[in-house]
């Protein structure tokens, strides 16, 4: 097969379709379809962008303007202010989102590191270590992905509620809940990546006298870094954007509630105060958007590897 490719003159493969066989009607149709195609692509792109742009533009307009006219008027009659952001990041306690921004960070960072650390170690147990029943246990962990969050919510909440630990460490239940819900997928994905580490590499290290800890830290871990980065980004965004766990495990308490829960409450109570909602929504989107643009490559790679969680 490779021989035929190398002997074939390269221009054959790249030559455009034979023009002589095309009628003028066909050429016209091709032109129209490409025009129509581009038009459809542009319409989709616009539909997918305009709502977010509208929100952002509105968040920068004075309250009175937001009430009286649509955000597109800002282009013909520009008047911008940072007042809305000052309100949601400072201002009175009932509309101050800064504290929830901090909560979200305090929740999301450990809730990314914990499952990641545990899953990397577990996937070592499932891919490099050999023990009886290993494959069956792995299938069991894999199957746990089927269990929707909703199935485990109430009993897991009961385990924590009313305990002394919950009073001293109010975030603990959120960290643990996010960790548990992330583990099945994390173990499955990282195991798949770890299984691709060449066996000879590990055996060579073992012949040189390296124990499992050395093999884990020095051989496997460095090779896993791209996969780890992909999963970390996903998990962080997932926790940051989560509402269900945040809502149930914070029990409506201001001290631990994440940004999403506070924003959802604001949308319920102050549904018409668009100057607060637009700025608040944008504050909540800020970090995900930065992560997204800075690390898009890892994001796409993770997506293609199947890290999609429900």
């Amino acid at each position, binding site marked *: 097969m490779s021989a035929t490719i190398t002997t074939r003159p390269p221009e054959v493969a790249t030559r455009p379709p*034979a023009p002589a066989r095309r009628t003028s009607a066909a050429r016209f149709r*091709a032109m129209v*379809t490409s025009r129509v195609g*581009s038009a459809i*692509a542009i319409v989709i*792109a616009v539909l997918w962008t305009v*709502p977010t742009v509208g*929100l952002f533009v*509105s968040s920068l307009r004075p309250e009175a303007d*937001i009430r*009286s*006219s649509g*955000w*597109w008027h800002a282009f013909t009659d520009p008047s911008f202010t940072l007042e809305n952001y000052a309100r949601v990041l400072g201002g009175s306690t009932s509309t101050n989102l800064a504290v929830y921004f*901090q909560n979200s960070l305090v929740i999301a*960072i*450990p809730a990314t590191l914990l499952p990641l*650390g*545990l*899953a990397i*170690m*577990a996937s070592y147990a499932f891919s490099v270590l050999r*023990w009886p029943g290993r494959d069956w*246990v792995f299938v069991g962990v894999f199957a746990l*992905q089927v*269990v*929707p969050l*909703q*199935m*485990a*919510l*109430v*009993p897991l909440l009961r*385990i924590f509620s009313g305990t002394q630990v919950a009073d001293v460490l109010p975030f603990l239940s959120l*960290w*643990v809940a996010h960790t*548990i*819900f992330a*583990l*099945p997928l994390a173990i499955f994905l990282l195991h798949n990546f770890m299984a691709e580490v060449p066996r000879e590499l590990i055996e060579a290290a073992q012949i040189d006298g390296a*124990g*499992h*800890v050395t093999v*884990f830290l020095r051989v496997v871990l460095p090779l896993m870094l791209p996969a780890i980065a992909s999963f970390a980004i996903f998990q962080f965004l997932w926790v*940051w*954007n989560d*509402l*269900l766990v945040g809502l*149930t495990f914070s029990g409506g308490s201001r001290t631990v509630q994440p940004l*999403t829960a506070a924003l*959802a409450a604001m*949308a319920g109570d102050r549904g018409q105060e*668009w100057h607060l*909602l637009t700025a608040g*929504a944008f504050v909540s*989107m800020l970090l*995900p958007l930065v*992560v*997204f643009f800075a690390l898009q490559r890892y994001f796409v790679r993770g997506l293609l590897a199947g890290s*999609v969680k429900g």
Partner: protein
Amino acid sequence: MSFLLYSKNGQLVLAIVAFAAVVALLLLTARLAERLRGRGRSGVMVLLFGGPALLLLAVGLVYPALRTLWMSFMDARSETFVGWANYAHVFVDPGGVVALRNTLAWVVLTPLCATAIGLVYAVLIDRSRFESAAKSLLFLPMAISFVGAGIIWRFVYEYRGAAQEQTGLLNAVIVWLGGDPVRFLQDSPLNTLFLIAVLVWTEAGFAMVILSAAIKAVPQDVVEAARLDGANAWQLFVRITVPSIRPSLVVVLTTISIATLKIFDITRTMTGAQFDTQVLANEMYDWSFVFGDNGIGSAMAVLIFLLVIPLVVYNVRQMARNRAVRA
């Protein structure tokens, strides 16, 4: 020390340090255990590497799921056995029927629309000059939370009486075209469709990325041969592209269906489940945490679980087949 316990940042630092200490301790023990001889050694290794994760899964996922199953056959306070009454309630209660009907609409329409749009877009921008920028545009909503997306779209759907100036984009366009403003989120049953559009908006990017990668994997000589035979763009798309990426299409469709079954954030943020927009996942939340009836809430959780299973099984089999084809 008090900083660590009594401030949020302190607790954050404490959590990270404590976790690092646990990992270090596990690895240190493993290093010591390496000196052991005989059978005990590998058992200890498995326990140290896999034990913590497996223990958490058993206590935090397997046990709660079984307990939810048990609670679904008990009364509101999980004290007396009520048989199938909770399940019957879901199918008899008018609210439950509305939720089931809406959930069905969500699960059928969201995957189809999101996949269709993602596919068309992926094909249209394939190999174009602006491909990666164009991808980012469609892909961007994936980084936004459902709560954020809900607020973005509530703003687009904003309605005001005909006498006032419309501040919602859609109604402004409608009025500009000479129509009457529409109450997008209040008028049932169409309001459910407008909520579904929001999920389509966030999921189309996912479909686009997966399908775009699949399209690029279609052998170029097949496409070239078809083109030399005089196939036009449409024929290429229907006869070559779609059949070649069929496995990816199935994975995308089922994955979005699974996510759709569990969605509750959009309904919650945009309509608060009023105006006949209730869905199963949100109703489960309401029964468990608002009305405090763990029996009915649990039955709904089990129902979601049962609906998800066939999709996941199909998805996994399809993925395994894809992998076998590729290998």
